[in-house]
């Protein structure tokens, strides 16, 4: 769409910018909130999945007869009798080839969980083991065993994106800094393991599941099962955190097949071990960044190259590999940039969408290299970023997108301004709050303190086509109907605030319907930090239209011009005058009024991006290698903030989560067997509350002209700057640079040992 002029509304906002209490707060605090695993249906069976003990094998046969002979075991499904649908382009529902330790082999349903578990032991499977590969770089060798037919480089070619010429850019440089960094795969470790309940009524299937998009789940279920989309109803329960990776339908497809065979409802809930191994985790990466700078600190070229381990299946890998390059291509003002992305299959658990996809991995390498480039040019890290960060005008170059076309959400081309860009404000206000210039590294015994910073860029919120409905109901109440899912971030609350603002009523008056394909219009998944922005635009349009329709209707009823009317509480009244009609009367007279608005978000004038700058103070214990983050400042440009409390929660959550990625978490695969060795809360080393520092959150004073009421994306950006800010701070504190995450004590001690060996 053509970008409208910025909001010129002169009266202060009533609902926007208020910390409305999140809509599900009471039910979550009292334990009444329902999750998928809380669904119990009459005669419901429990399903369990047999998982591969081998990293790569052909399944020669599966004999389920002994399991099925057990009283109380009601149905089974094996690769040899499964419907031939797919759950993803490279994944059958059950395959005769397994590709990682933990891959699905077969499933069964029984009267209770113990029986189902016991019955799994009775499934006789004959495997023919195949050669396997667990390392992404090895997987690219021509001699590596192929995980899928066609080789291990997904798509057959790397993703190569170049603006200008990096060769020319490096020729212009006085210094070139270059290094390779690695990041581990880590699990989101959601408290709620994924779960699904499936029940058939004749040919109609209902599925309750942890979901981040009921309409997409409905489509995928219908494709996998070969049933019409209309025959599938998906109900999204509360989400016990998903961080992006509960976007799959494997459990629900298996539950649906078992339910059909048993003619009874079936629930499958992943165990904690399964959630770690067969859930989806952040992709491990190796990233090389080469940056050219002039003596005055000007960046002349950036070339990043990422090898990314997608594990046994593609999942959202193609999106993730692209996102890993966005920092290198767009964060610094530079005419010559290039990104090469290699997405590789290995015989390890599958990567998937995880908060900000590849952006944290890419920015980690980029922002550690940026500190080195600053040093090479004799500049302070802050000064270097102030000099080089991309400004409101966007990248140098010429626009190639035709004038009236919507700009890509992560464009390569230059010559396109940002709709808004508060990056400089983030850097300046963040540095001020942190006390960057006054900070002095300190040492006390083995404890050393240092400071670090990082900046970042991310997609700003335009997503898929969004639809929202607004209704004035018979009782005179308002109902917002939307197909998006609140995945825990609070989008139901934020969207209600947008509806309230557009209607001119208080947020408490908005009732809502979400998360059920039977009752809501089609909607994209809650992904890419798009929900508030994209669904919000549709809600804003629908609510504004409903307001106009109500005022029109009241104008007819009262015989006064609509322009003199306003909604006050539960009635429509003249602003100056006595004529009034209650909303309930209006609704009973004219019948419920419903409007639907569909929006394809985006702008043909601007790139819409969110930005931020993070600052960390760390204390490293040189005796033990332990790193403690003692202070953290996170400054964000996410446009106008709809709900400050929820927004601060998002930033604190994103930072805390990625402190795990930076300092302790990783999925460890046994190199000899391909087995995941640490699939537990204990050994995955997710941080506890004791690890979290106080986080000061700052929002730039930016109102975006494209987003609803000036809002931009916020869900994922908080996770991007954490690793480089902390790793840069560790360098400042002890003079060593951790290039391989996580920065666990063993890594710190090994690096200290390299610098000054003290051991025999």
């Amino acid at each position: 769409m053509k970008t409208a002029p910025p909001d010129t509304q002169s009266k202060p906002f009533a609902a926007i910018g208020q910390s409305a209490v999140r809509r599900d707060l009471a039910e979550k605090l009292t334990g009444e909130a329902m999750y998928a695993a809380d669904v119990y249906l009459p005669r419901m069976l429990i399903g369990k999945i047999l998982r591969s003990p081998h990293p790569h094998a052909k399944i020669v046969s599966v004999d389920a007869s002994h399991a099925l002979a057990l009283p109380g075991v009601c149905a089974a499904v094996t690769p040899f009798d499964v419907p031939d649908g797919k759950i993803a382009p490279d994944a059958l529902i059950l395959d005769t080839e397994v590709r990682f330790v933990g891959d699905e082999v077969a499933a069964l349903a029984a009267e209770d969980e113990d029986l189902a578990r016991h019955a799994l032991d009775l499934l006789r499977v004959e495997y023919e083991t195949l050669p396997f590969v667990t390392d992404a770089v090895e997987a690219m060798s021509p001699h590596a065993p192929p995980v899928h037919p066609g080789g291990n480089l997904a798509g057959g070619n790397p993703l190569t994106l170049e603006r200008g010429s990096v060769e020319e850019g490096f020729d212009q440089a006085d210094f070139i800094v270059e290094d390779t960094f690695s990041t581990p795969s880590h699990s989101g470790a959601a408290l709620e393991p994924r779960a699904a309940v499936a029940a058939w009524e004749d040919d109609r299937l209902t599925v309750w599941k942890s979901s981040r998009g009921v309409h997409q789940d409905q489509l995928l279920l219908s494709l996998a099962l070969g049933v019409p989309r209309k025959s599938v109803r998906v109900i999204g329960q509360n989400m016990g955190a998903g961080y992006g990776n509960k976007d799959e339908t494997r459990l629900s497809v298996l539950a649906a097949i078992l339910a059909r065979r048993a003619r009874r409802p079936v629930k499958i809930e992943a165990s904690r071990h399964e959630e770690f191994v067969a859930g989806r985790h952040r992709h491990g990466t190796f990233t090389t960044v080469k940056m050219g700078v002039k003596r005055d600190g000007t960046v002349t070229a950036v070339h990043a190259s990422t090898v990314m381990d997608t594990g046994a299946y593609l999942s959202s890998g193609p999106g993730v590999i692209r996102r890993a390059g966005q920092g290198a291509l767009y964060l610094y003002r530079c005419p010559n940039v290039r990104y090469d992305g290699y997405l590789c299959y290995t015989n390890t658990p599958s990567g998937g969408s995880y908060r900000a996809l590849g952006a944290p991995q890419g920015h980690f390498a980029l922002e550690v290299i940026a500190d080195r480039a600053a040093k090479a040019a004799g500049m302070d890290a802050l000064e270097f970023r102030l000099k080089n960060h991309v400004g409101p005008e966007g990248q140098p170059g010429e626009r190639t997108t035709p004038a009236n076309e919507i700009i890509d959400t992560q464009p390569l081309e230059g010559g396109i301004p940002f709709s808004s860009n508060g990056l400089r404000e983030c850097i300046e206000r963040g540095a001020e709050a942190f006390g960057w210039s006054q900070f002095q590294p300190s040492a006390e015994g083995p404890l050393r303190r240092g400071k670090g910073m990082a900046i970042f860029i991310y997609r700003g919120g335009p997503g898929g086509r969004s639809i929202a409905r607004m209704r004035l109901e018979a009782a005179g109440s308002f109902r917002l109907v939307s197909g998006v899912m609140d995945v825990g971030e609070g989008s139901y609350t934020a969207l209600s605030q947008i509806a309230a603002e557009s209607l001119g009523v208080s947020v408490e008056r908005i009732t809502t319907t979400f998360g059920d394909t039977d009752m809501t219009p089609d909607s994209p998944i809650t992904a890419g930090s798009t929900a508030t922005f994209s669904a919000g635009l549709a809600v804003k349009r629908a609510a504004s239209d409903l307001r106009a329709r109500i005022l029109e209707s009241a104008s007819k009823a009262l015989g006064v011009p609509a322009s003199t009317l306003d909604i006050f509480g539960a009635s429509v009244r003249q602003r100056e005058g006595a004529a009034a009609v209650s909303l309930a009367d209006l609704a009973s007279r004219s019948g419920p009024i419903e409007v639907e608005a569909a929006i394809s978000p985006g702008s043909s004038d601007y790139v819409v991006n969110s930005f931020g700058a993070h600052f960390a103070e760390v204390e490293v214990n040189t005796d033990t290698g332990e790193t403690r983050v003692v202070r953290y400042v996170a400054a964000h440009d996410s446009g106008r903030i709809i709900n400050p409390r929820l927004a601060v929660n998002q930033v604190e959550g994103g930072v805390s989560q990625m402190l795990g990625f930076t300092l302790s978490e990783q999925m460890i695969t046994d190199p000899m067997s391909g087995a995941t060795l640490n699939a537990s809360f204990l050994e995955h080393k997710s941080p506890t509350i004791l690890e979290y520092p106080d986080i000061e959150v700052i929002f730039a004073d930016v109102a975006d002209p494209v987003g609803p009421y000036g809002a931009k994306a916020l869900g994922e950006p908080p996770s991007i700057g954490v690793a480089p800010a902390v790793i840069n701070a560790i360098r400042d504190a002890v003079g060593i640079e951790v290039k391989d995450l996580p920065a666990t004590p063993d890594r710190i001690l090994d690096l200290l040992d390299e610098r000054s060996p003290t051991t025999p």
Partner: protein
Amino acid sequence: MRPFQIHTPATLSDAHAALLAGDAAIVAGGTDILGETKEGIISPSALVSVGDLPELGGIEVSASGASIGGGVTLAEIAGSADIARLYPALAQAAASVATPQIRNVGTLGGNLCQRPRCWYYRSPLFDCLKKGGDTCFAVSGSSKYHAILGGDGCHIVHPSDPAVALAALNAEVEIFDGSGFRRLAIVDFFVGPSRSMISETVLGHAEIVAGIVLPPPAAAARSVYLKAKERRAYDFALASVGAYLEMDEDIVANARVALGGVSPVPHFAAEVSLALEGAAAGEIDAAEIGQLAVRHARPLSDNRYKVRLTANLVARALTILTSDEPPQ
């Protein structure tokens, strides 16, 4: 998981009798054995609950030392003013275990008898030496958390924190064998892989840890327990040190240093004790003593860091004990 029975005997003798039958196992707090049972690492036919036996309760302190029942929880030990005053290393070790929830139910006896955390041992996919197999998978696999000392074929580390403090404090373990009690030094209670591949203690069939006995600390004794880990709660030791120092004026009269997280049994560093005894406090080179403690270290491919870490912890412990620096 195989179904099992739960027995709740009223007396220690009854508990012993219940353990004699079949392949029963002892449960107290259950923080370890239930995990092992659920994972199918062990499949006992019955669990005999001893945590509430009166004979295993209580912390008693007298002029002749202290005794702590095997059923006393780690939280009770960590919260005891007497233990904190007389045996600070033990109080610190108990407080460093896992999480408040686990310390509230986990017992001293259970903590001493818990099984290794080695991820090959804990995974049903690996038939390792401890489970009667013929391979230690850590040797060519991932060995970050494994042993650097005394890994004789099997490279587990003993997971107990209190055991390390107790070794430094020269505690004895009291064992009930059905007919009576016997005591042995805590370092002799544990057995390494060269003596037993499938057990980490001397406990025989149906024997129960009744408690521990501590000698009275000397007037000028100090002790400390230091534990390095990857997060500040809910973590086992990467390495730990329990150190006890008894001073006679300015001279070290008696020193005991034990290491945790580095060997299949809590490691008593005899040569460190020897090197310290008779030294003047002001002349101790803590860094050098730290090096001495790891002189015989043989790290695997992923745990070389433990050598430096352990040496540093020993040095830090001695610095704390020989200075006025308050223990952490």
